[in-house]
């Protein structure tokens, strides 16, 4: 009993500490912590249905969410987004940075009772690089020169050259070799009935309706308090919100409008806790740098100066987000807080445009150079209302400095195939997910400007190339930080994108769940320690 109290106290202190961290999270609802107890279920709403529970083959977020509860990797990110051991108790990186030796945790069992060993890790590696496996995730493992399992609890990989994102890549879900070896992974039953090592084991999946997980009593970190984790598939966010209010759901992600306008009543706040922290994503206005309009850096700087990012956050996100200055999430170790970005300043925009040779010759309000008016089209994908609204706000602001903007929305597939892949666009509004590892190779390196590659704006900067290579070639975080700080300064000067904003993630959880500990990693990092006091359990 005393130990329980102590746990409560610690949790309370933790959650208070989290409050003090300022913008990170805003919990509400004055409820006593109660005593941790086993039992109850958490019902979460999901817009999409998972496609497969073999994470190797899945690329959608619903599948990854569910798989995250069922499987473990060798390493994982802790609540402060630092790598820590998961199935690997510890690891060593050789002096030359070429070899990583993982020491695996002993006594971990698969959900079917078989022991977890290095054979499983070796299998996961082999099946991922197997050319017959239709996975999208082979690239990081391809850098491995040699993988070996000298004994059941040691796993060693050797790389041809030091590769910093390598460590993170071992966070992939480890698959059970004893159930998959020698079988066709694309036809395995595990896609619908997975067996993992994680805190929850699979119970049932009713197509299109719900997916139920049960707590794994033998989990190596201890039995999770919440007995069942239910995903309900509800494709419509309005319906989901009503289900939440009616008590049919315990957790969902709110839209900014719902957060700001529809969930502020006393009654709601007494039943639910809302959380708010920056999502791992940013929205940007990207320029086609091959296009003559945007080849001049001053023009891009001018456009950024003409746009009020705060206004976009207010108008599009109801204030639920923060200004982006570069490709990293504010608060993470690679994020440079001292970057001097171009702030909203229309006069400066006009001056920069004049410097670049754009003048309003015929007093129609549109700038002209070499007889051509400054007019361009912003493309964005259809169905993303926030991007469209962003484009409309930018259109108004640029008109004020003499640039005419047209807006076109195009269906996603066509947008990619006919415009992005062919480089046939002037400017686009899109978003990127911010990976946990700060490596920028795929999006910003000049070798990635080919067709169908992700540096589709065609950004080429020799110094950035060199810094990216240096950054991924060392495990020394200080050295990497220096590289990425400098890259952010260069990007802020070059403005290949106008980085617009980092939206906030806005999860809401029923107030009967205690022990939630908001952190930079979000709220799910300690899900196995969430609990519902006995008296409040519903299911």
């Amino acid at each position: 009993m005393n130990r329980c109290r102590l746990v409560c106290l610690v949790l309370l202190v933790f959650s208070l500490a989290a409050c003090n961290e300022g913008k990170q999270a805003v919990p509400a609802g004055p409820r006593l912590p109660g005593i941790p107890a086993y039992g109850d279920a958490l019902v979460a709403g999901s817009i999409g249905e998972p496609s497969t529970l073999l994470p190797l083959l899945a690329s959608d977020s619903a599948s990854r969410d569910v798989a995250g509860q069922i499987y473990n990797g060798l390493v994982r990110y802790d609540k402060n987004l630092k790598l820590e051991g998961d199935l690997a108790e510890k690891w060593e990186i050789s002096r030359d940075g070429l070899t990583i030796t993982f020491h695996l945790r002993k006594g971990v069992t698969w959900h079917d009772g078989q022991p977890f060993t290095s054979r499983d890790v070796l299998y996961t590696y082999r099946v991922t690089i197997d050319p017959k496996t239709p996975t999208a995730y082979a690239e990081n493992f391809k850098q491995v020169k040699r993988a070996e399992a000298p004994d059941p609890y040691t796993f060693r990989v050797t790389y041809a050259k030091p590769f910093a994102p390598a460590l993170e890549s071992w966070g992939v879900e480890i698959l059970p070799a004893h159930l998959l070896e020698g079988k066709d992974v694309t036809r395995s039953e595990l896609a619908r009935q997975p067996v993992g090592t994680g805190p929850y084991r699979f119970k049932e999946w009713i197509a299109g309706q719900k997916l139920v997980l049960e707590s794994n009593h033998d989990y190596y970190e201890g039995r999770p308090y919440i007995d069942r984790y239910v995903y309900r598939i509800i494709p419509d966010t309005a319906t989901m919100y009503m289900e939440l209010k009616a008590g049919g759901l315990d957790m969902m992600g709110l839209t900014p409008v719902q957060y700001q306008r529809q969930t502020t009543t006393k009654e709601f706040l007494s039943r639910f806790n809302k959380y708010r922290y920056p999502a791992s994503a940013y929205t940007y206005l990207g320029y086609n740098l091959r296009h003559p309009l945007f080849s001049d850096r001053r023009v891009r700087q001018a456009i950024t100066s003409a746009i009020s990012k705060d206004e976009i956050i207010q108008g599009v996100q109801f204030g639920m987000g923060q200004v982006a200055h570069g490709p990293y999430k504010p608060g993470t170790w690679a994020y440079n807080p001292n970057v001097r970005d171009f702030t909203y300043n229309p006069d400066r925009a006009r001056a920069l445009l004049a410097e670049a040779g754009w003048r309003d010759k015929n007093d129609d309000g549109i700038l002209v150079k070499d007889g051509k008016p400054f007019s361009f089209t912003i493309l964005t994908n259809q169905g993303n209302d926030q991007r469209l609204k962003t484009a409309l706000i930018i259109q108004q602001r640029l008109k004020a400095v003499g640039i005419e903007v047209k807006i076109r929305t195009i269906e996603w597939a066509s947008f990619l195939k006919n415009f992005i892949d062919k480089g046939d666009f002037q400017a686009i509004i899109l978003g990127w997910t911010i990976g946990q590892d700060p490596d920028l190779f795929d999006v910003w390196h000049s070798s990635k400007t080919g067709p169908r590659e992700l540096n589709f704006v065609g950004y080429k900067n020799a110094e950035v190339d060199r810094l990216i290579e240096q950054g991924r070639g060392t495990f020394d975080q200080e050295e990497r930080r220096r590289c990425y700080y400098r890259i952010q300064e260069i990007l802020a000067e070059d403005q290949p994108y106008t980085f617009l904003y980092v939206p906030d993630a806005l999860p809401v959880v029923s107030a009967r769940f205690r022990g939630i500990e908001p952190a930079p990693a979000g709220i799910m990092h300690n899900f196995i320690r969430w609990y519902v006091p006995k008296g409040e359990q519903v299911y």
Partner: protein
Amino acid sequence: MLYYLAKRLLLMIPLLVGITVITFTVIHLAPGEPVEMQVAMNPKVSAEARERLRKFYELDKPLHVQYAKWVSRLVRLDFGRSFAPDGRPVITKIRERLPVTISLNLIVLILEFALAIPIGIMAATHRDGPLDRWTTVFVFLGFATPLFWLSLILMYLFGVKLDWLPISGLHSLGYEAHGFWWRVGDMAKHLVIPLGVATFGSLAGLSRYMRTGMIEVLGQDYIMTARAKGLPERVVIYRHALRNALLPAITILGLSIPALIGGSVIFESIFAIPGMGKLFMDGVMARDYPLVMGVLVIGAVLTLLGNLLADLAYAIADPRIRHGRERAL
């Protein structure tokens, strides 16, 4: 008659081939490939991984080869495996969804006929009176109201405010633990709003056909004869007039058969009902060719069969049509 049936069935084969050729070509013409939709904009995916996926789905082969392979599987009644990452057989995916969609559509169809026909008759017999006007307003209101909006309002009213009915889905959580009748009741509760809204939206067409048909029939000479004989009005309407007025309703019923397997995406999304509409829509958005083709082929076969059945039913029901056709054959 048998000769006619055989001929119609044989004619369906080239028709079906034509349909599959056109649909197969058209969905491949749409920009984007399943691989693109799965991996686009994902920094972790290399060009080589993309090629690997294309090869896995055999998208690297020419279109006619892909079609030939697909047809050769189809004649063995194998719809192939979905291009979604789960790679499950298309037929399994359809089988999961079809019963829900068909049952719901069937119930809506029955409710529609059970309500629209009396409404139409009443409107016709009270022509231009207040009853006629009010039912007209009612059915057109159903026709004109955006159903997703009405659904949300009703969900809010009955689900959140009054807490009488569940909001979405087909079952309550943990329904497995209860007895059969409890589960039936639970499902019925879940279906009140969706079925109500769907029926409300469908009344206009049929009830107007009924009204027009009835008014026309009531103006005929034989009705006057019946009335002149001194038959009670009830007998005149329901025994003599109704039979002939029902013909357009039978046409509509025949046309509704293929629609039974189709579902509405918006409807299914709002009520979180796992039906065919959402399955098909997701398949199209992800360029899941085998799934799209599978749904379309089943739809095409049902449409052709539905038309055939409707024609046959006519022939059986109406001697004029039957004789006319046999002479023509």
